[in-house]
């Protein structure tokens, strides 16, 4: 499988990272090298093997459905780029 410049641009868009042409070109070269390494995986027969998502086969713990954290809005918003009246501000998305 050969990666193309369009793949790099598409993936960068999905990842919400702006790339100009020079960056996309450089990324293509390096990602091609990395995928050369990753392709080694294809040599092994993996039929019948269960995927391992996690180091321990854990069952997710459940806890009682009660409030454990108090209101931290002011503390958390003190470090936000832009807030007003307890709301995070972003550029307008709805006209």
């Amino acid at each position, binding site marked *: 499988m050969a990666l193309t410049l369009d793949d790099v641009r598409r993936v960068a868009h999905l*990842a919400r990272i702006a790339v100009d042409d020079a960056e996309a070109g450089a990324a293509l070269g390096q990602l091609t090298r990395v995928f050369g390494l990753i392709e080694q*995986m294809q040599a*092994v027969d993996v039929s019948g093997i269960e995927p391992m*998502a996690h*180091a321990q086969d854990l069952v997710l713990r459940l806890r009682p459905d009660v409030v454990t954290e108090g209101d931290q809005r002011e503390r958390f918003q003190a470090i*936000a780029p832009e807030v007003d009246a307890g709301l995070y501000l972003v*550029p307008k998305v709805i006209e």
Partner: protein
Amino acid sequence: MSNATLKELSLKLATGACSSVELTHEYLNKINRLNNDLGCFITVDGERSLAQAQAADAQRSAGRAGPLTGIPLAHKDIFCTQGWLTTCGSRMLANFVAPYDAHVVERCSAAGMVTLGKTNMDEFAMGSSNETSYFGPVRNPWHRETVPGGSSGGSAAAVAARLAPAATGTDTGGSIRQPAALTGICGLKPTYGVVSRYGMIAFASSLDQAGPMARTAEDLGLLLNVMAGFDARDSTSLDRPTEDYLRDLPRSVAGLRIGLPQEFLAAGLAPDVQRAVDAAVAEYRKLGATVVDISLPNMGLSVPVYYVLAPAEASSNLSRFDGVRYGHRAAEYTDLLDMYKRTRAEGFGAEVKRRILIGTYVLSHGYYDAYYIRAQKLRRLIAQDFAAAFQKCDVIMGPTSPTTAFRLGEKSADPVQMYLSDIYTIAVNLAGLPGMSIPCGFDGGGLPVGLQIIGNYFDEARMLNVAHQYQLATDWHLKMPPGIE
């Protein structure tokens, strides 16, 4: 005094030979003198450290001191520390003051330990040389033109240069063990789930694990006793009975079965590294251990598997950095999408972007089965190799890193070369096993070599015993970088 171990400092504080304030002053002075050259710390805040030291001294006067009360340590800048900058080595978080403490930081503070500062690291823990940090590289105290390894490079170099008696680190693919090896100190990555990840900025959540970095195996145990423990705020934290990781230190290693995987003698292993590791194994034989040849046939696949799984998890974890709630936001943008894209283009460095792109690609429509699911299947094969090996041996030994410290810039042009420097450590994370590195000699250029010790699940106490017995018989861990008094 800054050459003392945690154990020795604990004794000095207990007998009143020094106070925590005096000790903290001494380390801060040393940091002040050497940090410009070495780049170990991103943030130092002497006033805060001294206030903590005063509180520790008061605790001791009140008769409420524990073994580590008043002892300073450095935290990797991946751990949230309330009131301190927590940058994760990134421009994205260059202005981020954490609103809460990580579990590990909380535990260390509760034990009365003093925070000396926040250590430099590869950006978001992605790197093996500390060169991807937004705040500049860390230099290896043994040779200033070489790297300290990474990603916990600042922690490792700080401990090696005696700027801190111990430090915290994190290890996703070798980030505690490889820098420990390259700087001649000790580092332990516990079994996945032993130390809470709460407040530890996530890179690859199924692999990330925090652990201690120090100068002796005994010190690692002292610190692990503080760091380990159940925490309901991390869904992968294991609810197990509390252990004393020092309990087995005095045990003899006679009869210990050491597994030597043939795959650890792969091409690319530096002859000097192999010599030092062979000599360490010979020392263990003298101490009564036996050697068993084992095989980890799928180990060669661990690097490719890791570079699918870790970037996949990272691309998901790092999607939270969007310029809305905290961290960097681009100054100029046209609309919301443009704001996200510019914020992330400016906030992340080249290696982090590369991994996000890899991760996004392998998770994208049409590629998920071929890459992500296949990698997870191979992960199981790698874990099964270890399970089979531990039928025949108690611990596995080999080199931590194929080479000693390499020169700054030597591998930064080629990501694949850089990735291969974790070839001996990554499989341990994929399996979730505990692994450690201890100093076992030097190469011809005077750079330290690390011996990797891999244990079965929850065998940390046994591994520390094995390392401690070696350190009673040898003095590699006592060697000091030149020019460090």
